[in-house]
């Protein structure tokens, strides 16, 4: 069993804690008016898991761990297939999520004919 480099682990936890703090600060300022776009936007952004699926879908079929343990070539190809499905669903989220967020945000407009300060 390998052990993880503690420096890397600690750095990851720092990133997590700071992102949580920042996320709380940024997202509490979003008005209820925009809560639906917020949900679809964060959804699109978390479609960044696409980059994880890309690597798995594009991995070389020769897997060194499987080779070393005398494994078959079938194992990596299952992973490739899972990676492919993940690439597809994550891309749907990214493209669909950003697309629909923009479509919604386009609709939010201020009163055009200025009759008194409407705020």
């Amino acid at each position, binding site marked *: 069993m390998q052990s993880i480099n503690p420096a890397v682990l600690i750095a990851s936890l720092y990133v997590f804690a700071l*992102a949580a703090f920042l996320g709380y600060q940024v997202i509490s300022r979003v008005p209820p008016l*925009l809560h639906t776009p917020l949900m679809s936007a964060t959804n699109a952004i978390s479609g960044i898991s696409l980059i994880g699926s*890309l690597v798995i879908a594009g991995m070389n079929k020769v897997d060194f761990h499987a080779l070393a343990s005398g494994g078959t070539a079938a194992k990596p190809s299952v*992973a490739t297939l899972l990676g492919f499905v*993940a*690439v597809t669903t994550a891309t749907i989220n990214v*493209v669909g999520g*950003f697309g629909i967020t923009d479509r919604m945000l386009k609709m939010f407009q201020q009163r055009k004919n200025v009759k008194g300060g409407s705020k």
Partner: protein
Amino acid sequence: MEQVGVNYFLEFTYLIASVLFILGLKGLSHPESARRGMFMAEAGMAAAVFGTLFHHDIHVYEWIILGLVAGSIIGALMAIWVPMTAMPQRTALSHAFGAIAAALVGIAEYTLHGGATMPGFTRGALGFEVMLGALTTTGSLIAAGKLQGVVRGTPVQFKGQQVLNLVLFGSMVGCFIYTIIHPEASLFFYAMAGLGFLFGVMLVIPIGSADMPVVMSLLNSYAGLAAAATGFVLGNNVLIIAGTLDGFSGLILSILMCKAMNRSITNVLFGGFGAVHHEAGPGATGEMREISLDDAAVRLAYASKVVFVPGYGLATAQAQHAVRDLASALEERGVTVKYGIHPVAGRMPGHMNVLLAEANVPYGDLYEMEQINPEFPTTDVAVVVGANDVVNPDARDNPDSPIAGMPILEVDKAKSVIVLKRGQGRGFSGLENPLFFKPVTSMLYGDAKSSLAQLAQEVKNV
């Protein structure tokens, strides 16, 4: 040597993406800056994806291109064709897509490397990712089915359900812990994933449609946290950051939604609201006064201030444009028109705002509950369109009511109230609403869309 350069390039695109994501969400603090913010986030995403294509582990591009093209086409079609009234279903579906991507990446990582070669911490993060991903996938699919009407919207409950759920959850966590202690036990890993998928279904079927805003927010949070866990597994910071932002956004929204219903998250998840309470107290009695279209139109036309209170019925009747037409007709006569939006009106956070914005209602006219409540005593007519629980005075007056303590839009304090309702039946929660029996209230029965259209016509003719 060259590889080191590529790695730096890769990490740099991730850093850019992280910064742009945060700036993008910051843009959402105001409608004016929101679109610009989203362009930044899109640029960040493009940078990260482009950078990843140079990852040293990628050797075959066929599957990648196929997935990217297929996903883009489906995503673009969804973005263009999904109507605004179906936004809750679409969002639930996208939680499912995000979650299944995380779950599949986790399972793929496991099949590639096996548990035994991973450090304990990575195995934990991987298990967490797969578990959350699996339960969010099926949970979101059920939620989407309920919202679309494919799955029965009423809570599905049976004897021993909570015990069964507890056993399922316990076995799932048990498998999770077992795989951490015994890395080579792959059977338990797959059992954990399967239990996760099953638990997601069981978690959402007992929840009623009226509680969907909370469920949607929670699933949003889970999907984000699953992505963050993926980041820990892969040691990828941009994944951790984006997933955490998503997770916390969902968490904040869940808390806001629960506050707006005066309930706890556990109560929503295990309460099965809308099915258990048979008769809460004596229930309101009396006579409902019906009003004719003509009378309603006259009353509206000669008012000086009118407040519209939309609810989920507005979405089901697709009546957002009809409301806007009536409002325009009234404004032309010099009537002040405002809209009072309850945080849990509709089926997801902000649902009503999006619908009204689609009908070209300026966002300056949309008021939050705290802003509009002090205005009701000076309001001549409050028009309730397809809303029920959010205007139920029992929440304020009757401590025995199942929704006691839930903050409401106090339309009953207006000088008069017109309630647009399809029939005399109860709302989604099945609760009797004493508002309908109050002397200030008049009922206008019929389909909201056609009633509103006729009202607009009548108002023009007054």
